[in-house]
C-alpha cells in the first residue's frame, strides 16, 4: 500500500488547566484525545464538529503550531513529531494553512506583494525579480490581477482577501494545506467561488487538504473522506457519501438531523 501523505497516530493535545494557590496544574482539557487518521495524495479530508470540539487544535497540532502531548505525526512516512524548529523549516514548505478570517490573518501594514512574497523571501527562493514574477503568477492563479500587488489588504473585499491568503499559502508549492474554516466568513456566492478555486488548485497541483468546517454541506461538497469530532475524539470517519448516507455514531446522526434544509 502507498504511504499516505499525512498520517496521525494516537495524537493527544492537552491544555493544562491551572488554578489554586500556586497556580499549579489542576487538570487537563483534552482538546485532541487519541486521534488517528491519514490523508492520501490529492485527497481532501473534511473535519466537522461544533465549536470547542478540538478540530482547529488538531489542525494546528498537525502543522506543529501547537505543542502536542503525545502521539506521532508522519509526513510522507517520516516522523516529524520531534523535529527541532530548524529541522521543521524544511517541512514547513510542504505544509501550509489558510485561516478563517481574511481580515485578521493578513498584516494590514504590508502590501499584497509583500504578503505573498514573504514565504519566498524567508526560504530564499530565487532572486528578487524571480520572486516578483512568482508573486504575479500566484496572484493570477488565484484569480487576482497583477495591478493589485501594490495595494493593501483593507482595499479588498473578503473574498479577494481570502484569495490573497491562498496565494501566500501556495507560494512554496506545498503538498498539504490545512484550511481552517476557510470559507466560513464569506457570503454564499463568494464562498462558492473560493471552493471552486480550492478544487481547481487540488486538480492542478495535486495538493491534499485537511478541510476544517462547521458547515456540513460545504464539507460534503469538497471532501473525499470526512471525520467527525466530538469532545476531542474522532467519533467517526469514512468516505463522504457513505458517512452522510449512513451515519453510525449517534452524534453524527444528531448533527446531520439538525441542519436546516431548503424545502421546495
Amino acid at each position, binding site marked *: 500500500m502507498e504511504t499516505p501523505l499525512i498520517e496521525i497516530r494516537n495524537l493527544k493535545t492537552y491544555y493544562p488547566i491551572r488554578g489554586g494557590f500556586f497556580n499549579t496544574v489542576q487538570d487537563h482539557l483534552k482538546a485532541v484525545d487519541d486521534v488517528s487518521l491519514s490523508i492520501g495524495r490529492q485527497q481532501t479530508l473534511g473535519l466537522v464538529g*461544533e*465549536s470547542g470540539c478540538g478540530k482547529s487544535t488538531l489542525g494546528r497540532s498537525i502543522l506543529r503550531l501547537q505543542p502536542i502531548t503525545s502521539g506521532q505525526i508522519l509526513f510522507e512516512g517520516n516522523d516529524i513529531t520531534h523535529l527541532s524548529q530548524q529541522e521543521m523549516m524544511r517541512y514547513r514548505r510542504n505544509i501550509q494553512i489558510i485561516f478563517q478570517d481574511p481580515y485578521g490573518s493578513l498584516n494590514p501594514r504590508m502590501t499584497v506583494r509583500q504578503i505573498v512574497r514573504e514565504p519566498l523571501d524567508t526560504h530564499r527562493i530565487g532572486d528578487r525579480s524571480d520572486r516578483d514574477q512568482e508573486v504575479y503568477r500566484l496572484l493570477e492563479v488565484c484569480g487576482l490581477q497583477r495591478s493589485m500587488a501594490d495595494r493593501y489588504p483593507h482595499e479588498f473585499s473578503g473574498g479577494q482577501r481570502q484569495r490573497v491568503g491562498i496565494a501566500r499559502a501556495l507560494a512554496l508549492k506545498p503538498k498539504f494545506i490545512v484550511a481552517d474554516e476557510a470559507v466560513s466568513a464569506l*457570503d*454564499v*456566492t463568494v*464562498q*462558492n467561488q473560493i*471552493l471552486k478555486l480550492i478544487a481547481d488548485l487540488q486538480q492542478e497541483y495535486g495538493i491534499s487538504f485537511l478541510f476544517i468546517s*462547521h*458547515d*456540513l*454541506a*460545504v464539507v*460534503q*461538497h469538497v471532501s473525499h473522506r470526512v471525520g467527525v469530532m466530538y469532545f476531542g475524539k474522532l467519533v467517526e470517519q469514512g468516505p463522504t457519501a457513505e458517512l*452522510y*448516507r449512513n451515519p453510525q455514531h449517534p452524534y453524527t446522526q*444528531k*448533527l*446531520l*438531523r*439538525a*441542519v*436546516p*434544509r*431548503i*424545502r*421546495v
Partner: protein
Amino acid sequence: MPNEKPLLKVEHLSVEFTTDSGVVKAVDDVSFEVGAGEAVGIVGESGSGKSVTALTLLQLVPNPPGRITGGRIELDGIDILSRNQAQMRRIRGDVASMIFQEPMTALNPVFTIGNQMTEVIRVHRKVSSKAALDIAVQMLASVNIPTPSEQVKKYPHQLSGGQRQRVMIAMALSCDPKLLIADEPTTALDVTVQAQVLDEIHRQQTARNMGMILITHDLGVVSETCKRVIVMYQGKIVEVGETRELFRNPQHPYTRTLLDSVLSLRD
C-alpha cells in the same frame, strides 16, 4: 384576510449613510407588509440592507451617520417615523422587540439576568420589583430554561451561548409584543443548538400568534421557519413570495444566483 389591516406596513423606505467616501444608500425604496401572526423572512448577503431595514423599524439606526430619507412605517397603527426617541422607548419591547445575533454583546455583563429582565418589565408595566422577578422566572421557564429561579441570579458569562439566546428570547417576549424582529438569532450558535433555538422561536411565535421578521443569510433557516420570504440585494427588495414557491421557482436573477450558490446537504 385581504381586508384586514397588516400589523406592519413599510412604504417606500429609504435610509442613507454618510461615509468618508460619500453617501451610501443602504435601504432604497423598500416596501413590504407583515400580517398579525405572520412569520416573514428577509434574506440577502452582507451589506444588502436587511439589518438596517430591521433597525429602522424601531428607529435604532444611529443618526449620524444614518439618515432616513423617505418613506413611512406603520406598526400596529402607529406612525413610527413621527415619534421621538422618548416615545420610541415605550414602543420598543412593548409593541415590537428585537433579538440580536450575539447575545453576549446584547446582554450587559455586569448585571444579573434577573436584573436585566426586570428592567424591561418595569419600564412597561407598573409592578413591584418582586412581581417583576416572578414574571422573569416564568418567562425563563416558558422558553425551557431549567431551574429558572436559580438562573435569574446568574451573570451572562455563566450561561452557554444557547442559554443566553433563550434569555434574549424570554426578555424580548416578556411584554407580549405583537412583532418580534430576530436579526440572525442563531448565526453564532452551533448547528444542534441552532435547531433547538429555532424550535423555541417558532413555538413562541405560533403560540402567541405574534408577527415575526426573521433576518438571516441562511436560506435553510428561512425555509424551515417562514411562510413568506423577502430577498434583498444592494438595498432593494428584488423578490417577495411564498417561501416554498420562491425557492422552487425563483424569478429574479439574483435569487437564482443565491440559490445556485447555496450548498445544501445532498441525499
